[in-house]
């Protein structure tokens, strides 16, 4: 009934995997001018925002309904038509975030501002996904395989 040796091993292994994941995600990242934000709706890229220069490339006019610019805050606001409601996305020099959405959990709003590859903003009810990508090296499945190989190496070293 009490704490057993297997528990300790399990917890240590899980902790090692977690720390390995953190090192992979946060260690080699710099604030880089190559980063742009990619907004996807229903797995299709609808908008690309260069938030450092506040320029954008609209790919699907039907989803991105309006674009406005706030001179005082130096913020650009994009309104998207999501699956269940409108999604309002703001981009500034500091990064990109979701300002308003009609989804029930508000997970996308609570994620906050993002400016580096790593944490994406996901609004699953609206089928909207915002990721920051490196223009030169896009996140691909190869990179994910590398994560797992690195974690395995960490585990057996």
């Amino acid at each position, binding site marked *: *009934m*009490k*704490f*057993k*040796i*297997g*528990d300790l091993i*399990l*917890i240590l292994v*899980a*902790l090692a*995997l*977690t720390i390995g*994941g*953190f090192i992979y*995600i946060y260690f080699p990242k710099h604030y880089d001018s190559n980063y742009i934000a990619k907004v*996807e709706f229903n*797995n299709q890229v609808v908008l690309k925002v260069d938030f450092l220069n506040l320029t954008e490339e609209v790919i699907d006019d039907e989803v991105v309904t309006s674009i406005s610019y706030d001179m005082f805050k130096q913020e650009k606001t994009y309104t998207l038509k999501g699956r269940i409601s409108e999604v309002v996305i703001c981009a500034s020099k500091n990064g990109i975030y979701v300002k308003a959405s009609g989804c*029930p*959990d508000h*997970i*996308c709003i*609570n*994620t906050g501002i993002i400016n580096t590859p*790593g*944490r*994406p903003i*996901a609004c*699953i*009810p609206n*089928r909207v*996904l915002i*990721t920051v990508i490196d223009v030169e090296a896009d*996140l691909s*499945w190869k990179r*994910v395989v590398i*994560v797992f190989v690195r974690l395995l190496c960490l585990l057996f070293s």
Partner: protein
Amino acid sequence: MKKSRYSIRKIVVLAIFLAISVVVSYVESFIPIPIPGVKLGLANVIILVLLYDDTIGNAFLVLIMRIFLVGLIRGSLFTPTWFMSLSGGMFAFVAMLIFSRIPLFSSIGTSVMGSISHCIGQIIVAICMLSSLGLLYYLPWIMLLSLGTGIMSGFLAILIRKRYKEIILGNDLGHN
């Protein structure tokens, strides 16, 4: 009269467990946690206790009915969020079933494994829905938190199992 598979005592005990787990998992959805999509997972404690001290079928029954009822109460039945919790629940159940039958692990290890696989199940559904492997980046954050909540619910399960044996199983001997 045809004899039922369950005695009245069994039905009442299972109903109480189901009610506790529904209420707990509804209430804990109001507790704010900084990382999106993470919950305390207190309802898992009930499944854990049933897996150890009751049959596998009863534990599965309570799990499925809890997921349906919570979906009905929150109004999220058959939505993406509900499928995420369904897949998380299934993954956690299978993992806890395997680990609870290995004598090397106590209920703490089992519940840590359960909460980690709950997160993996949720992430898999989210990846399928958004078809983006970028969501894998959430995994370390979620795993760190689920380690904490898993250890906590493991200790809770030990306490509850002690009371469960004293109160419910103990009375059975006297009155059957």
